[in-house]
């Protein structure tokens, strides 16, 4: 096998409690690299597109990449993919931490689950030993309790765990999968897929290192990249303040959604929700993931006040916005408490904050009343009702039952004008960056294969002034221009598709990693040279196979849209502008080689060997 890979995929049929090991196909590696690329190829080939995502016939793929578990900085991530129960289309989510490397150390590049266990079950991978074990005693337990209990009963404190919480068990479509006690694969409701399979957790322990093709070159390169990253002011910034360190700057340019995307300026709120404020109040220490010098993760401890006693992983930027500004809450303590509740229940914080903001607005406009909320007064900025809402979403009680299935389904159930307050694309709640502030985000959200996502392209980084000279992105473009953005979004989507396949944490890309480092790393790790063109062509292939997955489900131009609300500019604070999505889409389809309906043309598929 090529360097970097273990060459083995574990297949687990939960219906028959049968496991088998199969070789990782070399064709997959050459064309799709790993991570999200290989997961997409597997699901495209194997899955009946019309399968019910919560039925035993759906498949759930956990994949690592060739760099996972090597000492290349920031390569501790893994990817999970499936047909999403939240969106009904391609679903993927990733998490950093330590679980991905551990899976490699146990000898596997990935795991494919299908079927449904008769009873709650967990998988225990201990190097060569594979066991499906009874998880009845863990069912109903929160993710932190589950992790602690598993480590102690397996007598392997060094094992790494991914697990679902009660929300995933009860099939909430916004349920996430929690890794290493707080790393979260949040998006697309994949926790519910695990729940539907009666799969509570996967515990892994491995001791076999990942071999690379050219160890000397690899080690020299790791030293070179690590030293650049260590000296980058961006590294220091992320380490000191985490991703929420950007909260105030984001607010200043109108990027942070406030009060369910109806306001774009709240400097005092942003300051109180910032990583800088967190550092002065509840931060215990920065923590890091496998082999990452950045340490952007937060460990917090609240020592006094109403939330005293809350401790563990702290909120990131997305959560500070979805549980803060989106709900007009400016108290970092309640955000941290809510973050902890969501980690324990296993709920995605972006979707959860969006669902609660949606409910607040429905309540404010009289679409739901105290009768629907069982007496909970939903008022913007109120802590008590906010925490109660998380509880009922996690327990699937009362109105929490419909909110736990995401804003799209909830708006359909509530009816009337509720869809106007449901801020999503293709069923996935929008992340906390406003496309009216960065025009490329509008196109990125509309065309992202998993529904609204800022990280599938991260093109707003370019509009903020981060350059990628080797991709030809040397200048900061006007963030309000719609013209000419399609090419940049395509380049960034294809680039990020490879990043999610190798797999490298995207945050590292602004702390010193360059494309030329990546190409040299690929050669030293896998053992073959890749040109910039081949690198980008691989990304294009990966992006397109996911589009094909979605096209088979009927996705076309009619679905590449934005919520109506985002079509209206806000004019308080930094002036917003309306994104001209139609113009950008025309240009985008043409450059992608797709037809007018957004389907890759046959000649494009031939060119991409798809």
């Amino acid at each position, binding site marked *: 096998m090529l360097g970097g890979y273990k060459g083995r995929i574990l297949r687990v049929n939960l219906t028959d409690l049968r496991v088998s090991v199969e070789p990782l196909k070399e064709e997959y590696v050459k064309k799709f690299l790993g991570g999200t690329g290989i997961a997409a190829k597997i699901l495209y080939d194997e899955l009946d597109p019309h399968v019910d995502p919560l039925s035993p016939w759906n498949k759930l793929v956990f994949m690592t990449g060739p760099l996972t578990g090597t000492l290349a900085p920031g390569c501790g991530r893994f990817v999970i993919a499936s047909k999403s129960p939240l969106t009904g289309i391609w679903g993927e989510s990733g998490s950093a931490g330590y679980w991905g490397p551990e899976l490699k150390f146990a000898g596997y590049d990935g795991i494919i689950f299908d079927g449904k266990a008769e009873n709650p079950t967990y998988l225990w991978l201990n190097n060569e030993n594979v066991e499906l074990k009874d998880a009845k005693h863990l069912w109903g337990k929160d993710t932190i309790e589950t992790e602690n209990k598993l480590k102690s009963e397996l007598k392997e404190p060094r094992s790494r765990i991914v697990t679902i919480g009660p929300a995933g068990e009860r099939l909430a479509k916004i349920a996430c999968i929690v890794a290493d006690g707080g790393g979260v694969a949040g998006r697309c409701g994949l926790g519910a897929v695990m729940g539907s399979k009666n799969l509570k957790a996967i515990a892994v322990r491995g001791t076999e290192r990942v071999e690379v093709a050219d160890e000397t070159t690899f080690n020299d390169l790791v030293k070179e990249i690590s030293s650049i990253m260590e000296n980058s002011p961006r590294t220091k910034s992320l380490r000191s303040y985490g991703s929420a360190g*950007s909260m105030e700057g984001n607010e200043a340019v109108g990027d942070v959604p406030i009060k369910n995307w109806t306001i774009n300026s709240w400097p005092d709120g942003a300051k109180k929700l910032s990583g800088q404020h967190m550092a002065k109040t509840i931060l215990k220490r920065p923590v890091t993931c496998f082999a990452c010098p950045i340490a952007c993760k937060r460990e917090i401890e609240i020592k006094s006040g109403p939330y005293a006693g809350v401790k563990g992983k702290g909120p990131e930027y997305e959560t500070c916005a979805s549980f803060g500004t989106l709900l007009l809450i400016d108290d970092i303590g309640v955000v941290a408490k809510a973050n902890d509740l969501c980690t324990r229940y296993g709920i995605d914080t972006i979707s959860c904050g969006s669902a609660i903001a949606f409910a607040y607005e429905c309540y404010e406009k009289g679409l739901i009343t105290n009768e629907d909320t069982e007496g909970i007064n939903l008022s913007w900025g109120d802590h008590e009702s906010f925490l109660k809402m998380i509880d009922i979403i996690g327990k699937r009680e009362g109105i929490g039952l419909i909110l736990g299935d995401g804003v799209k389904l909830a708006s359909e159930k509530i009816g009337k004008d509720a869809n106007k307050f449901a801020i999503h694309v293709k069923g996935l709640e929008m992340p906390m960056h406003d496309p009216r502030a960065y025009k490329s985000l509008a196109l990125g959200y509309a065309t992202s294969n998993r529904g609204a996502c800022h990280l599938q392209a991260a093109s707003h980084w370019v509009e903020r002034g981060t350059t990628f000279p080797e991709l030809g992105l040397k200048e900061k473009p006007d963030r309000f221009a719609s013209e000419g953005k399609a090419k940049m979004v395509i380049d960034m989507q294809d680039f990020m598709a490879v990043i999610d396949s190798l797999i490298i944490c995207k945050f590292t890309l602004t702390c010193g990693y360059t494309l030329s480092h990546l190409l040299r790393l690929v050669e030293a790790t896998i053992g073959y040279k890749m040109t910039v063109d081949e690198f980008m062509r691989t990304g294009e292939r990966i992006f397109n196979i996911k589009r094909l997955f979605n096209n088979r489900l009927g996705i076309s131009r009619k679905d590449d849209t934005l919520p109506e609300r985002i079509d209206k500019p806000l004019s308080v604070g930094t002036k917003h502008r309306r994104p001209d999505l139609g113009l950008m889409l025309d240009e985008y389809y043409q450059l992608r080689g797709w037809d007018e309906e957004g389907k890759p043309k046959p000649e494009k598929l031939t060119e991409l060997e798809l």
Partner: protein
Amino acid sequence: MIRIHIRLLGDLREAIGKEKIEINLPNNSSIKELIENKLLRYEELKDHLIDPTTKRIRTDIIILINERSIESSIESERVKDGDTVTLASVVAGG
């Protein structure tokens, strides 16, 4: 001479421990001159404002004059008496 109010957000504020600074500048000064001649006097801001590779002013800092963000070049953007210039650095993430 014109008087400019500087507002520093996030990291920049923490770096020097101050959110607001008042500065005097020659008439018709550009944002580039404001940064080079005034802000870089604060040693602690250098890391945040200067790109370690190009040794020039970073392209990825957020700069607003009053409530309008600067999208064109920092050489051509000029300030006038009484303007508030807001600066923030943002990092990838989230």
